[in-house]
């Protein structure tokens, strides 16, 4: 009898332990798209930014709806012209014990500007466009730009702060010509990936990064903000949606990102699991080479580039049935897009012109442009970056073939795709971009390349429209919100008329998770351990 009496509490403890998730303190997450580096300045890419947000902090952070919130800066204000002043947080320590001061911020901005190992420029030109960055005291930062920059806090939210102790240096000043006072070598992407310089002030610390296998983080117990309920986080890349969901059901993961919408029926009747679906600001679009002739992957009978004709571009846009793609390929987890940011966000058109699916009219327009017999086109796409990316490209190829365009699809992994696109090797390529206000897309993708002003750094299609450039340039230096929004709407309308991009849809982001977790979905699609907590009992 006494043995039985002992056994009951023991059994209760066991049952309790079983009810708790295995290793309650470790959050195991399956990612659909793997970060390509731990270096926060290597590539401005959602998975990289999301990983960086765990280890580092920027001066300004964004919440789940992409509103600005204080981070390493507690407050900021503009003088209404070229100057922004940031008050920095006191008492913050890096994970190597060094205190955070304005010097670290200046060091970071210099590193971004001097970074030789990054992809597609990153924020390099943004920093190079700054006139001066000064630190009147250890916790004040004054940024002066050549032209007024209304979006400075938002732009700086994308730059994670490093500690200056990872490079040998003298007195650090913002003087790019004299290497900012740094005497030793700048840290490289390899050093970040090995972990030796992956030192930040964020809620987690890097334990290990093994490409293709797992990224392990441990909690930073000295974090200045609210401490994470998770002792450790393990990110595992599982690029295929099926195995990812199977892993969740089998109990290998606590949270997975982007399960296939069609598979959610599996979870519907299973009390152990739940999911959140959040509309995102990420637009999926095709970028057209509107400038070069000949262009590598498009050619008419004479070998010229037909995409230079706006009628052809408009016809292509009209030939695509966005509703069908959203419904049949995306299983409803997408909203058809007729501009580059969801209606309602800052600077968007309240009623963007809807492009009706009309293959007959599209064929007529093609004939008008002299392409009744179509032309040859290769659509290039990633097959592991955006939700259903290669399926989308195939469907678009199908639609374009209906109006006589002989379309082929070349699907490749993003590790090959992005560097090739940055070298402008494509003619009709898929893209995805999430942002928080309308100027961002237009500034980087549509404005003509002007490295000094950081315009057009992703303008791989070579779009150069003087009227549009004028509007967006003016908008970007207008400090008054009302006036800026109006200019952005004019620029947006003009950009849609040019049909240099074919917007398809805005992705919904889905996270599936164990039912005993609470997950806050983010419109920027980042999968963050900070958005996940155990459900309160």
């Amino acid at each position, binding site marked *: 009898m006494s043995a039985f009496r002992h056994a009951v509490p023991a059994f209760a403890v066991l049952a309790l332990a079983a009810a708790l998730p295995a290793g309650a303190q470790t959050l195991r997450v399956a990612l659909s798209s793997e970060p390509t580096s731990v270096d926060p300045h290597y590539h401005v890419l959602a998975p990289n930014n999301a990983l960086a947000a765990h280890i580092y902090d920027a001066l300004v952070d964004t919440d789940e709806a992409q509103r600005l919130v204080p981070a390493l800066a507690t407050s900021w204000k503009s003088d209404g012209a070229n100057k922004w002043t940031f008050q920095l947080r006191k008492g913050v320590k890096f994970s190597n014990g060094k205190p955070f001061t304005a010097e670290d911020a200046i060091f970071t901005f210099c590193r971004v500007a001097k970074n030789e190992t990054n992809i597609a420029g990153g924020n390099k030109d943004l920093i190079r466009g700054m006139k001066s960055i000064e630190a009147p005291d250890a916790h004040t930062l004054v940024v002066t730009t050549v032209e007024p920059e209304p979006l400075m806090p938002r732009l700086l939210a994308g730059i994670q702060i490093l500690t200056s102790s990872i490079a040998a240096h003298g007195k650090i000043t913002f003087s790019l010509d004299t290497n900012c006072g740094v005497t030793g070598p700048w840290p490289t992407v390899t050093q970040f990936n090995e972990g030796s310089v992956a030192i930040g002030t964020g809620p987690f610390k890097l334990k290990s990064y093994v490409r293709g296998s797992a990224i392990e983080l441990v909690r930073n117990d000295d974090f200045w903000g609210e401490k994470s309920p998770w002792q450790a986080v393990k990110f595992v890349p599982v690029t295929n949606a099926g195995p990812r969901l*199977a892993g969740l059901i089998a109990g290998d993961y606590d949270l997975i990102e982007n399960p296939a919408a069609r*598979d959610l*029926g599996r979870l519907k009747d299973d009390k152990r699991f739940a999911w959140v679906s959040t509309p995102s600001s990420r637009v999926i679009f095709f970028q057209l080479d509107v400038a070069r002739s000949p262009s590598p992957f498009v050619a008419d009978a004479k070998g010229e580039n037909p995409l230079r004709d706006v009628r052809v571009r408009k016809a292509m846009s009209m030939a695509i049935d966005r509703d*069908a793609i959203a419904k049949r*390929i995306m299983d409803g987890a997408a909203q058809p897009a007729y501009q580059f940011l969801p209606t309602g966000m800052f600077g968007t058109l309240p009623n963007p012109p809807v492009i009706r699916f009309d293959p007959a009219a599209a064929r007529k327009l093609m004939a008008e442009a002299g392409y009744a017999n179509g032309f040859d086109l290769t659509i290039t796409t990633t097959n592991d970056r955006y939700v259903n990316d290669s*399926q989308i490209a195939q469907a678009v190829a199908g639609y374009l073939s*209906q109006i006589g365009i002989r379309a082929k*699809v070349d699907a490749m992994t993003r590790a090959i795709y992005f560097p090739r696109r940055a070298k402008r090797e494509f003619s009709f390529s898929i893209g995805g971009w999430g942002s928080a206000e309308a100027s961002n897309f237009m500034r980087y993708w549509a404005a003509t390349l002007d490295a000094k002003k950081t315009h057009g750094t992703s303008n791989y299609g070579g779009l150069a429209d003087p009227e549009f450039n004028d509007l967006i340039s003016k908008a970007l230096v207008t400090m008054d919100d009302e006036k800026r929004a109006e200019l952005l709407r004019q620029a947006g309308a003009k950009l849609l008329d040019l049909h240099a991009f074919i917007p398809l849809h805005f992705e919904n982001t889905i996270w599936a998770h164990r039912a005993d977790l609470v997950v806050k979905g983010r419109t920027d699609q980042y999968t963050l351990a900070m958005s996940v907590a155990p459900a309160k009992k």
Partner: protein
Amino acid sequence: MTPVPVASGDDTALRRRVLRRIASRPTVKGALLVLAVLVAFALLAPFVAPQNPYDLTALNVMDNRLPPGEKGMAGFTFWLGSDAQGRDMLSAILYGLRTSLLVGLAATAGALVVGVTVGLTAAQFGGRVDATLMRVVDFILGFPAILVALVLLASIGRGVEKVILAIVVVQWANYARLMRAAALVERRKEYIEAAVNQGLPTAYIMRAHLLPNSIGSVLVVATVSIAGAITLEATLSFLGVGVPVTQPSLGLLIANGFEFLLSGEYWIPLFPGLALLALILSINVVGERLRRSFDAHRH
């Protein structure tokens, strides 16, 4: 097994007798029948398939993921269902069989030509030529075939002809080694010596005596290898480096389909998988029986 009469010296008669014996076995009979049906379907695909699955204008996204037996907007019945792009699975399988057989036959033939030439040369000339050629063969065989093919295709791109090339590159060495061994045995025989002593040109001896008398076993192995080549093509396409996504082969159809296993659209991966299984199994049964019978008669 009843003893087979020892070869009477008339090779053609022996061969005919062996083939007849093989064909009379029920498993082989079944395999031959399956193979004949598959080959016939593959050849006639453009005439019997309800849809040209490689013609993008024929596909309708609104017809996607229809279960087997459903009628689509295109007006015909999707007997085996449709995939994510609205491609009729039956048509895709018929066209996929074409690709598989084409790749299997062309790659094996190519590898055979290269391998036999190299093996024969090595056996005939011996010495340094033999050593060099055989070290190259060792080098190729030292790497897993799939790895070499993957690297090769990653650098030269996609397409049926490139897949064939990649398979030739990884398979010729097998034939070279076999051919060399067979030719070395043959070369020691007296009639070759006689030919050499008669002063016949080396090229003539190789072509007229050595080749026809030592190629038998290599050809038998080649039949089995056709199945190997088809599997390799399917694997490469499954991994996404084989044929283009808009012209799926059986391997790519399976790769596309396994995403749908969890959502219950079993027909997308299942039917191409069964077709591939039937094809490979029937070739293997026939080839294996062929090999064993010839081996039995040779010794």
